[in-house]
């Protein structure tokens, strides 16, 4: 209804009249100023509503009464409305953000701001080339002037550099426009036909497009933009970074149809190069705003590449990808600049200050997650679709550049986030001043991101509410955070129960089995978390998110649903790990490795042929013939998550540094997600065995993980780190037995994973109980706790017997199954190495139980009480579980046999309790009773024949006719297997750790090398621009 031309007219008129209004007081001028801005937003919003919902066709407005070629015509279509809506909205919110600044500064800044908004609107709507030049100039001049809103030396020189570079670019733009006119004789975009640009004509369109591309700050020629981002006032920088760039990117979008294909490709490649290198250089940044500058340049490059590469795809896809990247960049960037404005801290390492202000930290976190493409934010969907598109287009080089670039981005963004959450608060001025206006605009923007993501989730993908569950859990529990922790614990327990109930009718019993591990296992582990005393905000929210994402993993129907659940699981476990006291490095390491794995899986999934049946992925994948590259990628992704050799360095850090009642979740259940994935890959692999026998190598990796994990575990001083390496070694067993691809192999894999979940959670919870009482994790500080904590001792004793595989308990069943499957399959050397690993596992198991429970009790632990009841209940449940399985193995062998039955024909005969395989037979029940009988005989002998027994205290030992000086000196715990380490000699060196450390160093030095380009000298920047143009010209090969 309102003709969009009024936007330009009104802002222009207001611009001039403001100085008059100002005469009668600044308040009046401000009111006028803000009313104009809100008017613009409403007009555009109304049109946008008409276009999208009512489906009105694009509107063309002719000026000065003449039709198009003679006069300038403006056009407002769905794309323009979308861009303008966001541009004006950001403009309004940035203005609100700058309200304090506008009050003080003279009226000219308000005028300039209005002119800027008018320039943006005009630039987007105009179809006429020269008019575009005019609006571009208006826009640039007002931005140049606004840069010195806060007058300091840095912003002035940055402004000057920006102006020169902008000037050069606009000169070329002008030349381009003129030559286009010369060759086509026409200035209006609609009437120029691209065929005119034959041989000579190419120079015109080249000049035009290169000028616009320079404005978009391509990689080598964007020094001037970085200085502006770093020094200018945050409000203005957000406007420059978002509103200007949005307008210019749209200009590029408008002139794109004219460009020849080879020029387009060059710009696409240049975009990806910009994204990759700016993120690489971001690694080395310590200044917050400059880091955001690098990231925004990168995002612009990505946006350009996305526009170019989605040119031939259907509209819906374009809107999703380009729209997703656009909103993601726009909102996240503006929000983050505003937050840097609020926090006012130059150096990243001082951002520990954010810990004080929880609300701001949440905003900051959400915006960072949006920027780095974590679901449910738009960036995630856009990246998924874009990678899928590129992979189908066989452009692997581009895919590689983008994924590697976004990995660098994840590194420096999450490093920033972990510093903010875990960094120490800087001493001077620790307080963040609260300004309503700044908070208001940031919260609005975060709200908009969330609404967009929900819209995308609803509109583009018809997800059922299961996929939303993890999100709902976090939000609901965020609002319930004031309730004391125990009630929240019970609530979450009930929630998991209900979720399990809804999840129950699984399609395949393999899902049921993993369902039990995930849901029932986490339910029991939640009991252990009930021991928490204080409110501990946000813990149960993310815990539920993780558990629900486990469940969603099982019932995922499409690749995207699986990947969505996978990413939810990663991000929630990352936040849970981050809660640990010294967990900053550990969580960063974890998120980097998981995202790298996730990206590999993303490529894998996009390469995989699409699913036929709509049943759960685990079933549907069995009749899909995954090409070999996909299986390799997926397998690597899943193995990263299950901590196999070579990518295992995140595992000990994450387990040890996470809070003591979180580590059981991570080690017992999170690793099983990787195992579930490997099963999925295995299922598709067995139906269509391709040439290259990949699973043979996965088998070797599993075996080596087992042996290396066992050795590393036995040389640890910290109890939780020891258990972490032990889980790595146990999962190594599982991975190796999956790789056998035989009935017995998979049976042992499932049996061991169920076993591992039980005894590993029991062990971790027991150590949590010990840590809760003795407040220390290093083992040599403990000792002799059997007298004070007998129940924990029993649970650890049963745990280590189960882990080591000593006959009566269920561990032996796992070992028997594994060795028979290995020998049956013919992997003899692997069986030998596995046997060696299980023998070495005795070392660390004995070390765990001896240093903590046996030996000498220290003075300070004299009055330690038994672990709290909440830790004991889950341990008792798990102990009962282990005893039940070892007493009646059929309880689990029977169902597992049927599960594996529908993939392989069964190779074992189960009659009663006697299980006979091709090699030998095992009767768990009989062994258990015989062992009990055997155990009773010497007990009776001892009780009968033993004289009067006198139980004595800990110092009544034969100490070579002396008395022991102190418990510390007589307790053998520190560096227990020093001779073994000496025997291993060279083999003991941490090679893999060094390798990853080297790559990290190498990446940082490379980033240091590339950022030398920005020497800070304005002239060199102009030189870069001109050289860039010349280089692109030659590449284009006119």
């Amino acid at each position, binding site marked *: 209804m309102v003709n969009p031309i009024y936007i330009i007219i009104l802002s222009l008129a207001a611009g001039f009249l403001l100085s008059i209004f100002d005469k009668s007081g600044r308040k009046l001028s401000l009111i006028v100023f803000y009313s104009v801005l809100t008017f613009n937003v409403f007009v555009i919003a109304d049109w946008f509503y008409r276009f999208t919902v009512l489906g009105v066709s694009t509107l063309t407005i002719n000026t000065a009464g003449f039709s198009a070629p003679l006069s300038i015509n403006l056009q407002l279509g769905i794309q323009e409305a979308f861009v303008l809506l966001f541009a004006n909205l950001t403009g309004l919110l940035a203005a609100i953000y700058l309200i304090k600044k506008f009050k003080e500064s003279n009226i000219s800044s308000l005028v300039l701001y209005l002119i800027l908004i008018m320039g943006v609107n005009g630039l987007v709507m105009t179809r006429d080339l020269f008019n575009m030049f005019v609006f571009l100039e208006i826009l640039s001049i007002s931005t140049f002037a606004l840069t010195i809103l806060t007058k300091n030396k840095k912003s002035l020189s940055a402004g000057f550099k920006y102006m020169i570079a902008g000037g050069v670019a606009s000169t070329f733009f002008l030349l381009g426009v003129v030559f286009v006119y010369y060759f086509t004789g026409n200035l209006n975009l609609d009437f120029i036909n691209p065929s005119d640009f034959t041989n000579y004509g190419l120079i015109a369109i080249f000049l035009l497009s290169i000028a616009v591309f320079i404005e978009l700050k391509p990689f080598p020629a964007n020094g001037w933009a970085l200085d502006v981002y770093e020094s200018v006032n945050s409000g203005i920088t957000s406007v420059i970074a978002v509103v200007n760039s949005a307008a210019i990117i749209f200009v590029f979008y408008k002139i794109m149809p004219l460009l020849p294909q080879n020029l387009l490709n060059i710009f696409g490649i240049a975009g990806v190069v910009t994204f990759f290198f700016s993120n690489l250089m971001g690694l080395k940044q310590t200044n917050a705003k400059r880091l955001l500058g690098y990231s925004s340049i990168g995002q612009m490059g990505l946006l350009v590449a996305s526009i170019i590469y989605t040119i031939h795809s259907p509209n819906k896809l374009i809107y999703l990808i380009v729209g997703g990247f656009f909103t993601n960049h726009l909102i996240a960037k503006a929000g983050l600049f505003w937050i840097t404005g609020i926090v006012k801290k130059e150096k990243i390492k001082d951002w520990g200050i954010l810990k004080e202000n929880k609300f701001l930290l949440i905003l900051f976190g959400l915006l960072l997650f949006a920027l780095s493409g974590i679901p449910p934010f738009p960036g995630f969907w856009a990246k998924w679709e874009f990678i899928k598109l590129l992979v189908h287009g066989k452009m692997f080089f581009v895919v590689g550049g983008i994924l590697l670039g976004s990995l660098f981005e994840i590194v420096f963004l999450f490093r920033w986030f972990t510093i903010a959450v875990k960094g120490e608060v800087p001493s001077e001025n620790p307080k963040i001043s609260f300004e309503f206006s700044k908070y208001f605009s940031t919260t609005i923007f975060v709200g908009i991101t969330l609404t967009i993501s929900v819209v995308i989730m609803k509109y583009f993908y018809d997800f059922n509410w299961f996929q939303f569950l993890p999100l709902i859990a976090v939000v609901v529990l965020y609002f319930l955070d004031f309730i004391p922790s125990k009630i929240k614990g019970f609530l979450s327990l009930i929630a998991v129960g209900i979720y399990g109930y809804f999840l129950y009718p699984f399609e395949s019993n393999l899902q049921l089995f993993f369902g039990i591990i995930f849901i029932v296992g986490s339910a029991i582990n939640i009991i252990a978390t009930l021991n928490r005393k204080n409110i501990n905000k946000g813990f149960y929210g993310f815990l539920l998110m993780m558990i629900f994402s486990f469940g969603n993993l099982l019932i995922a129907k499409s690749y995207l649903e699986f990947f969505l659940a996978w990413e939810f699981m990663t991000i929630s476990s990352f936040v849970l790990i981050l809660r640990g006291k010294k967990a900053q490095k550990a969580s960063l390491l974890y998120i980097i490795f998981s995202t790298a794995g996730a990206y590999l899986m993303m490529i894998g999934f996009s390469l995989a042929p699409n699913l036929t049946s709509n049943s759960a992925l685990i079933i549907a994948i069995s009749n899909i013939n995954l090409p070999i590259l996909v299986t390799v990628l997926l397998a690597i992704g899943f193995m990263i998550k299950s901590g196999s050799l070579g990518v295992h360095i995140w595992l000990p850090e994450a387990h040890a540094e996470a809070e003591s009642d979180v580590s059981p979740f991570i080690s017992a259940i999170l690793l099983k997600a990787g195992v579930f994935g490997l099963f999925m890959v295995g299922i598709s692999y067995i139906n269509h065995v391709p040439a290259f026998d990949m699973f043979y190598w996965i088998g070797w990796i599993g075996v080596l993980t087992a042996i290396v994990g066992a050795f590393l575990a036995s040389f640890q001083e910290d109890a939780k780190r020891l258990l972490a390496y032990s889980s790595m070694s146990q999962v190594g067993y599982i991975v190796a037995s999956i790789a056998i691809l035989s009935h017995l192999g998979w049976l042992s894999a499932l049996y061991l994973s169920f076993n591992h979940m039980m005894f590993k959670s029991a062990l971790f919870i027991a150590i949590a109980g010990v840590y809760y009482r003795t407040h220390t994790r290093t083992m040599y500080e403990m000792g002799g706790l059997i007298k004070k904590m007998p129940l924990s001792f029993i649970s650890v004793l049963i745990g280590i017997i189960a882990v080591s595989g000593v006959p009566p308990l269920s561990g032996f069943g796992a070992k028997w199954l594994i060795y028979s499957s290995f020998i049956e399959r013919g992997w003899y050397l692997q069986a030998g190495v596995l046997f060696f690993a299980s023998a070495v596992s005795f070392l660390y198991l004995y070390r765990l139980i001896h240093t903590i429970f046996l030996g000498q009790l220290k003075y300070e632990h004299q009055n330690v009480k038994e672990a709290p009841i909440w830790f004991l209940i889950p341990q008792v449940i798990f102990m009962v579980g282990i005893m039940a399985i070892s007493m009646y193995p059929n309880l689990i062998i029977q169902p597992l046999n049927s599960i594996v039955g529908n993939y392989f024909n069964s190779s074992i005969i189960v009659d009663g309790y006697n299980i006979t395989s091709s090699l030998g037979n095992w009767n768990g029940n009989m062994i258990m009773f015989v062992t009990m009988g055997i155990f009773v005989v010497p007990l009776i002998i001892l009780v009968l024949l033993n004289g009067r027994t006198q139980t004595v205290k800990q110092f009544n030992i*034969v100490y070579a*006719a002396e*008395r022991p000086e102190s418990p510390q000196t007589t307790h053998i715990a520190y560096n227990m297997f020093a001779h073994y380490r000496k025997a291993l000699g060279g083999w003991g060196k941490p090679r893999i750790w060094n390798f990853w450390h080297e790559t990290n160093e190498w990446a940082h030095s490379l980033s240091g090398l590339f950022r030398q380009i920005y020497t800070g000298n304005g002239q060199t920047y102009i030189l870069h621009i001109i050289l860039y143009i010349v280089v692109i010209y030659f590449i284009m090969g006119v």
Partner: protein
Amino acid sequence: MDKKNIKKIEKEMKLANEGLPEKERSLFSDVRPTSVTPLNKYLEKFLNWARAESLWFLGFGTGCGAIELRPLMTSRYDVFRYGIAPRPTPRQSSVFIIGGYASMKTVKRIVRSYEQMQGPKFVIALGSCTINGGMYYDSYNTINRIDHYIPVDVYIAGCMPRPESLIAGFNKLKEKIKAGECDGMNKYAENFDWYKKNQKRVIKDWNMPDFNW
């Protein structure tokens, strides 16, 4: 003395262990030793035979007698023939050989090792120094009569008796055990306070429990 009142006796007569600092009192057991009488005669006769046939002596070399123990294990004297073997810890040995002079410092260690030995235990004292102080009778440091500090079963005189006389001593000990006369443990438990008084008179800084279990 059946089981019931042993418990009662034990409870009232807890050892004080003042020699120890306050912090370490709870690290040592303060139970008083009690004498344990054998159950029935014939079983005891048989067990005495077994105890005599397999004498494990504690390799605790005090004074110059220790050097005599080494040749016993060589092929020339070969004491293994009689079932006699050295054991490194008092827990597993039944014979405690005190070889020669015992200074005040050594008596403390002798008492501690003797009390840490188990069940029927026998003591052989070599050389005249254990009998009446020998040539160090007038020294400020040497104990004159060892039997005031721990009960002794067999003395072997001589200013360091040769291995042959040692074997003779062992045989004498075997006869005494078979005859059932060697009851050092009960003797020590019954007049425990007398022994403790004597020991405390000689051992000045008593930083150990009253009875070293």
